[in-house]
């Protein structure tokens, strides 16, 4: 009989005790993060051509931060992402509640059409948006900022809110219907029940959905490219146009700033979610 103190063979899920798996995990991390780290490191490179390391400098950060059209594109992107997130979360949450709660004729069709923007290739969505805003619903030009960003914002909402709906729907399936009945039993109206019981339950899904919508909107290139006009350039589109002239460290610097912004926002979002989870999940 084996001694009880002998180390047992690692189980299939004990990744850290099997060296081939450790190797794969390590390799994957390198594969995922090395390009990003390279981008960040070369943003400090004191060279115009950005191929050979020439020395450390903050020069290109200064250049990026004083480049008015780049800043404008950055602000545009953040503004679009902000409105896209708020409206997508509201629309997505309402759609999820409707699909979870009610039965109605054509429900399957509605569910299917909601998933469509997730599966339709972005390039098709982009062309469709271009045609839509050119022929069916021309967005007036020459509107003051931020109204001129309307077309892009609408396009972003249309592909972001199904993601929110999917996440919130998944969260809702774990809802205990007795909680809703308990609230009503204690005298709460439909609205009070919705706000006091259902919304708190949906909160992690809402936060995850908001993060998704925000990042989807912030880094979307294809669809934005087809809906953006000359005065409504977003950050990814601007970076693309800068790359056509030269790959300068300025692009790296701007991208690094964007990475830091998204990482910080994601961290804040995850922190909010964790707070929420530690409060209720084990119940």
């Amino acid at each position, binding site marked *: 009989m084996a001694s009880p103190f002998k180390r047992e063979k690692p189980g299939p899920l004990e990744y850290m005790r099997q060296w081939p798996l450790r190797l794969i995990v390590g390799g994957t991390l390198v594969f995922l993060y090395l390009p990003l780290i390279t981008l960040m490191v070369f943003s400090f490179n004191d060279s115009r051509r950005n191929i050979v390391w020439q020395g450390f400098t903050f020069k290109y950060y200064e250049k990026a931060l004083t480049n008015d059209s780049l800043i404008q594109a950055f602000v545009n992107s953040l503004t679009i992402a902000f409105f896209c997130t708020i409206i997508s979360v509201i629309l997505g949450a309402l759609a999820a509640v409707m699909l979870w709660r009610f039965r109605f004729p054509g429900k399957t069709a509605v569910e299917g059409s909601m998933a469509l923007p997730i599966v339709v290739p972005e390039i098709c969505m982009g062309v469709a948006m271009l045609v839509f805003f050119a022929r069916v619903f021309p967005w007036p030009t020459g509107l003051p900022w931020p109204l001129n960003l309307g077309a892009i914002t609408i396009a972003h909402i249309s592909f972001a809110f199904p993601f929110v709906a999917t996440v919130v729907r998944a969260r809702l399936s774990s809802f205990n219907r*007795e909680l809703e009945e308990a609230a*009503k039993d204690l005298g709460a109206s439909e609205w009070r029940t919705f706000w006091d019981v259902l919304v708190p339950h949906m909160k992690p899904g809402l936060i995850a959905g908001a993060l998704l919508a925000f990042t989807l909107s912030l880094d979307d290139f294809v669809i934005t490219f087809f809906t953006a006009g000359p005065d409504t350039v977003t950050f990814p589109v601007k970076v693309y146009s800068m790359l056509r002239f030269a790959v300068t460290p300025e692009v790296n610097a701007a991208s690094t700033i964007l990475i830091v912004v998204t990482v910080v926002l994601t961290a804040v979002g995850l922190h909010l979610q964790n707070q929420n989870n530690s409060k209720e999940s084990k119940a």
Partner: protein
Amino acid sequence: MTDASPTQATKPGTVVKPNPIISFEKITKRFGKTVAVDNVSLQIQEGEFFALLGPSGCGKTTLLRMLAGFETPSEGRILIDGKDIAPLPPNKRPVNMVFQSYAVFPHMKVSENVAYGLKMDGVAGGEIKTRVAEALELVKLDGYGERMPDQLSGGQRQRVALARALEAAARVVARRAALGA
């Protein structure tokens, strides 16, 4: 199957008192072709401790859910204090229940859970505080008010649900007393 409906609860010899507080009159509930509750009549007097026993699936919960307003009887009517409660939605009915899963709100503190019914009833903040403290004392959970439900054992959660229902139901008793009913 032998007769396993809650009708058994009313013994043939029970003397029916004049003013039952809750009265089921010939209640039948069908779900599709399944008959969940079959022609039940029973009466509960004020102050009476009433236990409804039966094997699982015999319709105890369905009967209770019809009283609370989450199901509508297919036939018959339910009276509370002599009035038919059919038109009242669940949140307007003067009855409260402890749910099978306890349904303690996971995102609210124990004290907020117990206070919920009082808050919905528009009771003043100061009064809510003292009454919640009393209710928690009654179920021997004094000092647990600041805890979240996931920091309680199953039995403690059940007692929170009980305190919550009792406190919400107490308002009815209080109101009845005030009206001299």
